[in-house]
């Protein structure tokens, strides 16, 4: 037994030492020279000294692709199609991929090392993602743990965004800057500012940073990201379902829809636990006075306490969707909330006749 443990210990130590030697040797001895990264068949060509990750190389050249974990391979956001020069897929990548993606050369940019010329493909809209410098214009606590923060843009001064898109804000992390994705809550027609809703996650690096920001503080972010799928057909109902900070993209979608189609039917389903978690209800009720086809359903999942006033629904939000949404209507649904909520709502929407391609969600 002791010999067994000793053998495992010795083998492990040898592997650790060898790995360290290889890493040091690669850092100081390997010279990959200058490499060329060709994007989308030559629509953009970058020259880059070899040795860094593809993600770092792209960022250095101001090509911003989504990445939330700062290149640690734990978010799975930085997917690109690597056509040539990327080597074999790594085990750190496969959990984030479908078999189809693996076969079609999709890789995590943070895990691909630039060692030779590369040919890659990324969605064309990512080439227009920019880096923004801004200051905090306002901050407001919507609930005890959700903060609304507005950034006034400094450089560039305007942003072209679509409802439902998101930015990636830079926050100081223990091992250097990290980027975290947050949906934009401000309407697309407000071009000089970007507003977010951020829930404080205990121990969360970015949420703690954002909750600590004060008016006048400088921030940096990249964006906007995300493909926008809202149907332009006014006869298609819009169903928005959210919980907590998941209100952000939904708020943006609702304001956008009513800036274009005054008579369009929009359902807002918002689930939270208690009246302490409710926000924006009065603002939305004012909006409904102007747009009568706007249906607002808030639901509390905890029992109402004695003496509390509540005229909304009670129970989980998927039950409210089931209760209020008509079946068989032509609809598109946008969901943002915790994964169990998204799954429960998706099941209900399926029973109501929505096809999977008409349901868009963001499991935050």
């Amino acid at each position, binding site marked *: 037994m002791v010999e067994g443990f000793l*053998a*495992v210990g010795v083998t492990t130590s040898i592997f650790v030492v060898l790995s360290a030697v290889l890493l040091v040797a690669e850092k100081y001895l390997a010279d990959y020279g200058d490499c060329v990264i060709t994007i989308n068949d030559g629509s953009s060509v970058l020259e880059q000294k070899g040795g860094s990750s593809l993600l770092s190389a792209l960022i250095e050249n101001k090509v911003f692709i989504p990445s939330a974990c700062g290149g640690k391979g734990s978010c799975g956001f930085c997917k690109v199609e690597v056509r040539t020069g990327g080597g074999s897929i790594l085990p750190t990548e496969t959990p984030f991929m479908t078999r189809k993606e693996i076969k079609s050369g999709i890789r995590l940019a943070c895990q691909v090392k630039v060692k030779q010329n590369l040919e890659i493909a990324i969605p064309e809209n990512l080439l227009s993602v920019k880096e923004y410098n801004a200051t905090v214009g306002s901050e407001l606590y919507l609930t005890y743990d959700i903060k609304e923060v507005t950034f006034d843009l400094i450089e560039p001064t305007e942003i072209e965004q679509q409802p439902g898109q998101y930015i990636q804000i830079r926050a100081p992390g223990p091992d250097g800057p990290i980027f975290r994705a947050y949906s934009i809550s401000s309407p697309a027609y407000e071009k000089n500012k970007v507003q977010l809703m951020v829930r404080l996650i205990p121990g969360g690096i970015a949420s703690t940073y954002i909750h600590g920001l004060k008016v006048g503080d400088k921030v940096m972010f990249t964006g906007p990201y995300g493909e926008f799928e809202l149907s332009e057909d006014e006869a298609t109902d819009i169903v928005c379902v959210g919980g907590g900070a998941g209100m952000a993209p939904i708020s943006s979608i609702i304001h956008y829809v009513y800036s274009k189609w005054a008579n369009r039917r929009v359902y807002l389903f918002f689930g939270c636990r208690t009246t302490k978690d409710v926000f924006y209800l009065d603002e939305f009720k004012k909006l409904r006075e102007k747009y009568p086809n706007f249906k607002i359903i808030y639901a509390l999942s905890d029992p109402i306490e004695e003496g509390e006033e509540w005229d909304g629904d009670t129970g989980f939000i998927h039950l409210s969707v089931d209760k209020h949404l008509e079946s068989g209507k032509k609809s598109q649904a946008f969901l943002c909330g915790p994964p169990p909520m998204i799954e429960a709502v998706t099941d209900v929407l399926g029973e109501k006749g929505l096809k999977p391609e008409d349901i868009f969600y963001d499991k935050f």
Partner: protein
Amino acid sequence: MAFISIGDILDKAADFEKALELYYIEIRDNTPNNGVKLLTYYLSRHRRHLQDAFNNLEITDLNNIRKVKLKYEVGYYFEKEFHPMETPVADVSGNELLEAAVDYDKKLISLYEKIKNQPLPEGTGNFIGSLISIEQKDIVMLKKTMATHYY
């Protein structure tokens, strides 16, 4: 039980996933808390991590990985490591359920890391690495769900 091959471990891990699903059903049948009921559905669905990992493999590759013999005993006993929560099933809260799910993921990571530290063929090492990543990804999702305080 001494694990002889990767196949032994995968079988045991699959048994564990099935046992957890049954445990979640037991909680669901006994809890008066609708949030907990909802969570048990979600957790059952997402407890099929092995299947997620297998989906990225060709059958022949999986069979080859299963046959790989372990050089050293991993000293790991599912029966000892995995046990139900101390709280009676009818009283389990949503947060406890999520915390326990994180704990199960961490225990599996610890097992897979013990295997990964052994000398293994490259493909097998990669596969075990992907199992670790699946568990890590699940932990992130569970912690985010906990932070919403919705259940």
